[in-house]
C-alpha cells in the first residue's frame, strides 16, 4: 500500500445540474479537481454537496451537465462501472459479511486473484488487521469508519468520495480521524473529495476547499485564501466570524489604496481587494448590490493612547468582554449602533472593560471587500 497510484487525470464537472421535481438541488456547477488532491466540498445541509457527490459516484443521475474523469466522459456510466468509490455517511458496511469480506468485496467483483492479501494490507493501513474475522457490528463507530475507508481505498479508485464520514464520531475521535485520513491520503495518493458542513474540518484537511450554497459554488480556493479573502459575504460568514461594515461608496486618491466611506468615516482599503468593476467615484448607484468591508475579529486591535496612529481608526464603547482563556472577546458598539467583535490574545497587551471608550484599528492589508446582499 506504499506505492502511490497515478490517477488518469483530473475530475471535471461541467454545468452539472440536478433537479428534484421543482427543487433545484445543484444549479450548474463547473469544477475541476486536480488528480491526487485532497478536495473539500463545504456547505450547510441542503446546499447540494451530497447530491453532487452522489452524481460523481453514479448513484444519482444528473438532470444536465457532464462529468469527466481525465479525458473520459463518465456521465452515462453506471455506478459499478466507475473507478470511483464512496465512504458512506452511515458507513454502509455489509452486516452479514466479516470485516475481511467487506473490505474484499470490491476486489472480488473486479476478479482480483490476491484479494485476500490486498484486503489485509488495507486493514493494516487502518490498523484493524487483528479484527478481520469479526462482524462490523462488533466494532466501535470509529473502527467501522476505518473499515469503510479500507473497503473503498483497497480498490485503488481514481477518486475517493467521502460523504461526511466523521459526522457520527465524537470530537476527540474526529480529530484523530482527520489526521489519519490526511496521512492515508498522502500515502496512497488517490484524489479525495470530502463532503462536510464543518468548516474547521474542511480547512484543516483539504488542499482546496469549494464552498457551496443553495446549489451553486460560492468560491473555490486554498483554505487560507478563502479565509483571508472571501469573495462573497456568504463565504465570509460561513468560514469563521466576520465584522461586515456597510459601505456607502469609494473615492480614489490614486496609488495602492482607495478610500471607503462608512458612516462618515474614511477607511483605507487595498485596491487589490476590490471586486471587479467597483465604481470609485463616490456613492453607489441606486439599487446596486450592497457592498461591505469585512474585518476578522482577530485582525482588529484595541489601540492604546501612546500607540503609533493606525491608518484605520474607529471609536466605540465596549459593551461586553468575555474571557476564553487564550483570548478575550470584546463587543464594541459603534456610534451607529453596530457591534463589532474583537478577539485579542491574552498576551499582556491592553485590556478593556465594559463601558470603556476605545479606538479600534487594523492593517488595511488584512481587510476584504464583498459585494452582494447578505
Amino acid at each position, binding site marked *: 500500500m506504499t506505492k502511490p497510484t497515478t490517477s488518469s487525470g483530473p475530475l471535471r464537472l461541467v454545468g452539472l445540474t440536478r433537479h428534484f421535481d421543482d427543487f433545484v438541488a445543484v444549479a450548474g456547477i463547473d469544477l475541476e479537481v486536480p488528480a491526487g488532491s485532497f478536495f473539500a466540498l463545504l456547505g450547510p445541509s441542503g446546499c447540494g454537496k451530497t447530491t453532487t457527490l452522489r452524481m460523481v*459516484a453514479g448513484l444519482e443521475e444528473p438532470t444536465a451537465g457532464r462529468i469527466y474523469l481525465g479525458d473520459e466522459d463518465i456521465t452515462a456510466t453506471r455506478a459499478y462501472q466507475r473507478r470511483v468509490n464512496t465512504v*458512506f455517511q452511515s458507513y454502509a458496511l455489509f452486516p*452479514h459479511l466479516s470485516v475481511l469480506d467487506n473490505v474484499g468485496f470490491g476486489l472480488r*467483483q473486479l476478479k482480483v486473484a490476491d484479494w485476500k492479501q490486498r484486503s489485509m494490507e488495507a486493514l493494516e493501513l487502518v490498523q484493524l488487521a487483528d479484527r478481520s*474475522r469479526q*462482524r462490523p457490528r462488533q466494532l466501535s463507530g470509529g473502527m467501522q469508519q476505518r473499515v469503510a475507508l479500507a*473497503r473503498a481505498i483497497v480498490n485503488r479508485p481514481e477518486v475517493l468520495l467521502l460523504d461526511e464520514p466523521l459526522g457520527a464520531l465524537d470530537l476527540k475521535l474526529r480529530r484523530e480521524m482527520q489526521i489519519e485520513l490526511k496521512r492515508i491520503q498522502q500515502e496512497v495518493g488517490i484524489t479525495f473529495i470530502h463532503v462536510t458542513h464543518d468548516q474547521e474540518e474542511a480547512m484543516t484537511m483539504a488542499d482546496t476547499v469549494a464552498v457551496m450554497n443553495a446549489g451553486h459554488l460560492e468560491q473555490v480556493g486554498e483554505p487560507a485564501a478563502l479565509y483571508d479573502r472571501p469573495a462573497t459575504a456568504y463565504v465570509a460568514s460561513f468560514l469563521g466570524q466576520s465584522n461586515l461594515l456597510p459601505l456607502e461608496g469609494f473615492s480614489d486618491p490614486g496609488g495602492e489604496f482607495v478610500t471607503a466611506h462608512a458612516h462618515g468615516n474614511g477607511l483605507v482599503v487595498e485596491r487589490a481587494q476590490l471586486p471587479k468593476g467597483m465604481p470609485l467615484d463616490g456613492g453607489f448607484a441606486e439599487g446596486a448590490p450592497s457592498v461591505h468591508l469585512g474585518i476578522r475579529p482577530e485582525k482588529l486591535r484595541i489601540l492604546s493612547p501612546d500607540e503609533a496612529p493606525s491608518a484605520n481608526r474607529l471609536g466605540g464603547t465596549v459593551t461586553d468582554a468575555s474571557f476564553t482563556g487564550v483570548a478575550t472577546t470584546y463587543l464594541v458598539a459603534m456610534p451607529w449602533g453596530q457591534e463589532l467583535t474583537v478577539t485579542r490574545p491574552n498576551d499582556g497587551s491592553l485590556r478593556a472593560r465594559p463601558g470603556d471608550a476605545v479606538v479600534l484599528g487594523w492593517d488595511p492589508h488584512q481587510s476584504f471587500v464583498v459585494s452582494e446582499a447578505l
Partner: protein
Amino acid sequence: MAWLRRNLVIIVGLLVMAYILMPNVVVTVFSFNKPSGRYNYQWNEFSLDAWLHPCASAGMCEALGLSLWVAVVSSLVATVIGTAAAFALGRYRFRGRGATNLLVFFPMATPEVVMGSSLLTLFVAMGIPSGQGTILIAHILFTLSFVITTVKARVASLDPALEQAAADLYARPSQVFWRVTFPLVAPGIAAGALLAFALSFDDYIVTNFNAGATTVTFPMYVWGASQRGTPVQINVIGTVMFVGALAIVGIAQAIGARRRKVAP
C-alpha cells in the same frame, strides 16, 4: 419466605411453561397407550404398537402425505409470489400502493368460515371441481398475506445505502441482489415460508369447504376420526411434529449462537 421471594419469578415461569406444554405432554404420553376401547382418552397399558405401526390406521398416512404435499407446494408458491410483492410494496412508490397494502390485510382479517364458503361459491360458480387443486389455490391465497407482511417488514428495515455501497463496489444489479439484498432479507423470507407451511398444514375450516367429497387432509382426518374413535397413531404424528419443531428451533438457535461467537 425469603426463599420464596428470591425464586418467585422462576416458579411462576415454570408454572406458565407447564400450562403451555401440558397438552403436548399428554399427547406424547398417550402415544404410548394401548386403549381398551376405540377412544384414546384413558390410560390403560404401555405399548409401542402405534410407534411401530404408524400407518396402521386406515387412510391416515395418505391424509398426512396429502397435507405435507399441499403445505410444501402452497408455501413455496406463496413465498415466491409474496417475496416479489413485498419488494414491490416495501421499495417502490406506485399508483395503488396504499390500496394494495390495505387489501393484503383482508385475508388475515376475514373469518375463515367466510373465506372458505365464499371460495367454494366461487369455485362452484366457475365450474371448477373441488379437490387438491382447489385446496392448493385456497391455501396459497390465505398464506400469501402472511408472507408479504413478514418479508415486507424485513425489506423496509434494509438500509438502501447497503445496496448503493455494493453498486459502488462494482457489483451489477443482479450481483447486488444475490450478494447483499437476498442474504439480508433471507431470514424474513424463511420466517414467512415457515409460517405459510404451518398455517397450510393445520388448516381445517377453509380446506373442509373446498376439499370435495373424497380428498382428505390430515386435519380433516383427525376431525373425522374423533367422531368414530381416536387411533393412537394420531398421537404419534402429533409427537413427531412437536419434536421436529423443537429440533428446528434448537438448530436455528445453535447456528445463531455460533455466528455471534466468531473468534476475535
